[in-house]
C-alpha cells in the first residue's frame, strides 16, 4: 500500500502494509530514531508524535491513516535551528534522567501548549499522562511551566 504524507516538513511516500504501526515506519523506514517504543499498547506515551497538530500514540496508529496528514516528530520540533520552547525549557530544567521517555513527553507538552498556552498544574496532570520510570515528573512540571513562559514571550 502506497501512503504519502508530510513528515517534519518533508513530503514522504512509503510502500508498506497499511496496518503497520506508524512508529515503525518513522523509526525503521524513515530512520528517525527520536520517537521511542515503550509499551506498544498506547499506554506509556514514549511514541507520542503530532498528526495534524494533535498528539497521537504512534505505536497504535496504523500507517494507513497517515495518508495526506502532516506529521511531526521530536526531530521536527526544532524551527529553523531554534529549539522549540519545550526543548529549551527541558534543557534549562535539566529534566531527563535516562531520557528514553522524554521525546514523548515533549511532544505531548508541545501539543498541550498549543491548546492551553498557560497550563495549570491541574491541566498538566490531566493532559500529560505519559509514563517516566525515572520519575522525573517534578522536573517536567517545572519545565512545562517554563516552556509556557518562553512560548508566550516569543509570541
Amino acid at each position: 500500500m502506497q501512503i504519502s504524507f508530510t513528515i517534519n516538513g518533508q513530503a514522504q511516500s512509503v510502500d508498506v502494509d497499511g496496518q503497520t504501526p506508524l512508529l515503525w515506519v518513522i523509526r525503521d523506514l524513515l530512520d528517525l530514531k527520536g520517537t521511542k517504543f515503550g509499551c506498544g499498547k498506547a499506554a506509556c506515551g514514549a511514541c507520542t508524535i503530532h498528526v495534524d497538530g494533535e498528539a497521537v500514540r504512534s505505536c497504535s496508529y496504523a500507517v494507513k491513516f497517515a495518508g495526506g496528514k502532516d506529521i511531526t516528530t521530536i526531530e521536527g520540533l526544532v524551527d529553523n535551528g531554534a529549539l522549540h520552547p519545550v526543548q529549551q525549557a527541558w534543557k534549562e530544567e535539566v529534566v531527563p534522567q535516562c531520557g528514553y521517555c522524554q521525546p514523548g513527553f515533549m511532544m505531548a507538552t508541545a501539543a498541550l501548549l498549543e491548546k492551553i498556552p498557560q497550563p495549570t498544574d491541574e491541566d498538566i496532570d490531566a493532559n500529560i499522562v505519559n509514563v517516566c520510570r525515572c520519575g522525573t515528573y517534578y522536573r517536567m512540571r517545572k519545565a512545562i511551566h517554563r516552556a509556557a513562559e518562553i512560548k508566550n514571550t516569543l509570541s
Partner: protein
Amino acid sequence: MKNVRILLLLVVAAVVAVSTGLWADANSLPDRDLASEEATIEYDSDFDKMMAVLTHKRCVNCHPSDNYPRQGEDSHIHRFGVQRGDDNHGIAALRCETCHQHDNNNYSGVPGAPEWSLAPPSMAWQGLSRVEIAQSMLNPENNGGRNLEEIVEHLTEHELVLWAWEPGIDADGNEREKPPVPKDEYIAAVKSWAANGAIIPEQ
C-alpha cells in the same frame, strides 16, 4: 488354566473400565456437542433482547454517568484518568483520537471505530434500569433530538454501535466479550420493537 482365568479377568476388567469411563481423563473425554449444551438465552420480548445488548459493557462503558469513560470487561474507570472533555472526545492534549483510531488496532490492542467518543451526558446510561434507559433513549431532550426512525438508524447502523460485535482483542491478545445477542437478531429486535410502537414495559 489358572493363567487363562487371570487373563480373562483382566480382559473383563479392562472392558468394564473403558465402558464406565474409569480410564478417561479430562483430555480424553469423548467429544461433546458443546454447541447444544450452551444455553440459548430466551428473551420474552424484542424489548428484552434489545436491552440485553444496550445494557452490556460494550455499550455502557461509553455511556457513563460521570465524566470518565469505562473500559475492560470489569468496566473500570479508563486508565490514566482519561476525561470526557467538552465535546465528549477528550481534553486538550489527551483526545480519544490520541490512542483510538477508526478501527481496532490488533498490534496494540487498542480498540477503535469511527467517531470513537463518549455519548453525551444526556445519554448517560450507567446506573439506570432498562426501562429508564429506554425512556431516556426515546426522549428528544436526551437523545439529541432524534425521532424514532433516527433512533433505530443509530441503534442498527451506526458503526460505533455495531463495533460491539467486532470489539477486537486487548493488549494481551484476549478477545473482548461481545453482547449476548447476535448482531442480526439484535437489529431485527430493535426494528420489530420500533415497528410495534416502541413500547416500554412497566417498571
